């Protein structure tokens, strides 16, 4: 296994890298001194690329004072190097500062491929870094294809109606990965990886952007991105109050609440709950679609779900073609019974 061999050569960071080396760098997000749940997926993709290119795997951790708390966790995945960039201005994500910090890691590590998750942070950071490094960026990749040492990345285009296989023409190349597209890597018992702290000079600049305040919303709600179960409503819900019924069902199930585009556009529910091509892309264990007809744009956001349940009064609705279980009927009659039954059997 890569990275677990004790005799594996350790190299000082100032040594010049041989041009034949093809090292991989993954940027991992952290939240309050803990690794982001998607980190293990990014590491899986990173290991896969490193093995194919016969390169080493390095990790970049960027943050404030709590960032070093995540180092041990990262080393449990057996990587070659862990770069740690710590600065008070990196306490929470700021595009310009994080780009500078990650750029610093890239100058030291000179990676061939840089990977990160296509999250709110990754979707901002990756293009910033790509423009700074004059690198090609393939965003929202769902698979990796390798043949004869040539590495290609696959991403959906045209709202998932077509898949495209891209080969980067630059070194480094940047890749963002769609959440839930790669199986998470398991941690090993033997932590491994050289720790390399990097210092960076940052100061607030008046000609750029400053964050003035943070507003926290609905902190009790389960987040779509990390939810194992999702209950989503569509145009068929018909009104704001309809979502209350769905919310009760979601609560009984321990599920997050989501929506297709129309309820968001019509103001029945927060636009942050939108699932689909124009919203969030999710892949939970269980997805219950209520009053959702199954437009291409919605399916693009949830087809990766493991089990799909459709509840719709129109038996011909497209959603039934992609569902594992279906109930044909008016949701106002069906959903309360589901909620009641769930409460019976779960307690």
């Amino acid at each position, binding site marked *: 296994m890569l990275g677990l061999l004790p005799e594996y050569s350790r190299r000082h960071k100032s040594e010049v890298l041989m041009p034949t080396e093809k090292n991989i760098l993954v940027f991992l997000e952290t939240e309050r001194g803990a690794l982001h749940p998607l980190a293990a997926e990014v590491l899986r993709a990173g290991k896969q690329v490193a093995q194919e290119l016969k390169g080493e795997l390095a990790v970049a951790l960027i943050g404030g004072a709590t960032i070093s708390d995540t180092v041990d966790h990262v080393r449990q995945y057996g990587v070659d190097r862990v770069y740690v960039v710590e600065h008070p201005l990196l306490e929470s994500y700021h595009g310009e500062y994080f780009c500078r910090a990650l750029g610093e890691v890239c100058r030291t590590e000179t990676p061939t491929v840089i990977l990160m998750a296509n999250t709110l942070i990754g979707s901002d950071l990756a293009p910033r870094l790509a423009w700074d490094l004059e690198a090609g960026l393939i*965003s929202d990749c769902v698979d990796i294809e390798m043949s004869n040492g040539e590495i290609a990345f696959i991403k959906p285009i045209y709202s998932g109606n077509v898949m495209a296989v891209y*080969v980067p023409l630059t070194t480094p190349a940047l890749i963002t990965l769609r959440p839930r597209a790669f199986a998470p890597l398991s941690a090993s018992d033997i932590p491994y990886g050289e720790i390399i702290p990097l210092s960076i000079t940052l100061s607030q600049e008046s000609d750029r952007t400053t964050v003035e305040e943070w507003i926290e919303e609905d902190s009790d709600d389960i987040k779509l991105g990390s939810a194992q179960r999702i209950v989503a409503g569509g145009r068929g819900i018909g009104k704001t109050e309809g979502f209350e019924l769905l919310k009760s069902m979601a609560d009984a199930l321990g599920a997050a609440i989501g929506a297709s585009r129309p309820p968001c556009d019509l103001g029945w529910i927060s*636009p942050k709950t939108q699932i689909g091509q124009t919203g969030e892309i999710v892949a939970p264990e269980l997805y219950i679609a209520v009053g959702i007809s199954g437009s291409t744009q919605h399916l693009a956001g949830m087809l990766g779900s493991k089990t799909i349940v459709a509840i719709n009064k129109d038996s011909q609705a497209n959603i039934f073609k992609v569902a594992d*279980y279906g109930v044909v009927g008016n949701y106002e009659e*069906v959903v309360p019974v589901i909620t009641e039954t769930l409460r019976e059997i779960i307690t």
Partner: protein
Amino acid sequence: MHIIVCMKQVPDPEGPRDAFEINQSSGMVEPRGIPPVLSLFDENALEMALRIKDVSPGGAKISVLSIGKRISNAVMLKALAAGADELVKVEDGSLEAGLLDSFATAHVLAAVINKLPYDLIIVGRQAADFNDGQVGIGLGHLLDRPVVTLAQAVVVRDGDIRIERVLANGYEVVKAPIPAVIVASNEVGELRYPTMIQRREAKQKPVHTWGLKDIGLATLPSARLRRKRIYAPELKLRQCRILGGTPAEAGRNLVLQLKEDRMI
């Protein structure tokens, strides 16, 4: 206040799957029987610009900028009818969507923007066809302006802008100097619906058509990615098990079945 909104025409993403025909020899998607539409994300961007215009004391001028091989005025009319003041389009055979990567696109847009007055540039989160999501940040880089992404609302005040930027658990308020580039998030919501009168009047609004020469761009930057091939994804149709009975019985049966199958 002068706002430039970059908008792209794309084949209607709501079109049926078989409308996205794949030409293997050219490696391009050839849409069949579906009309071009404004990319939904760019509609979010225009809506954001219109909301700024709604509350600007001195008014605001919104220029819609679009580049492409051929741009349909009929499609762009929607933007003018919704409240944009003029359309600037750059057409050239080399500007085909399937051939340009984000870097080339941003270079062309930046070259046009350099010829126009502006305080704000607003773009959508990504294009609805290739979903790259890199052009807004590219414009900031090329024009040396700050970029704020994931913007759900903007307030202009005292020569600065304050942007509500979407976070996983809420939002942050980001202050940026003007001129700046804003990448609108889908949270902005749907583009307003124009009235019949607005539609009629939109036909009188100025449309400027330029070529690459007019914007002083002789060559496009070389590609940073190569598209090796495209293919139709396997459509994972599932065998749907319909639970029978009255709606109430079916609801109960669904839960019991999910339980039996260890789904819950």
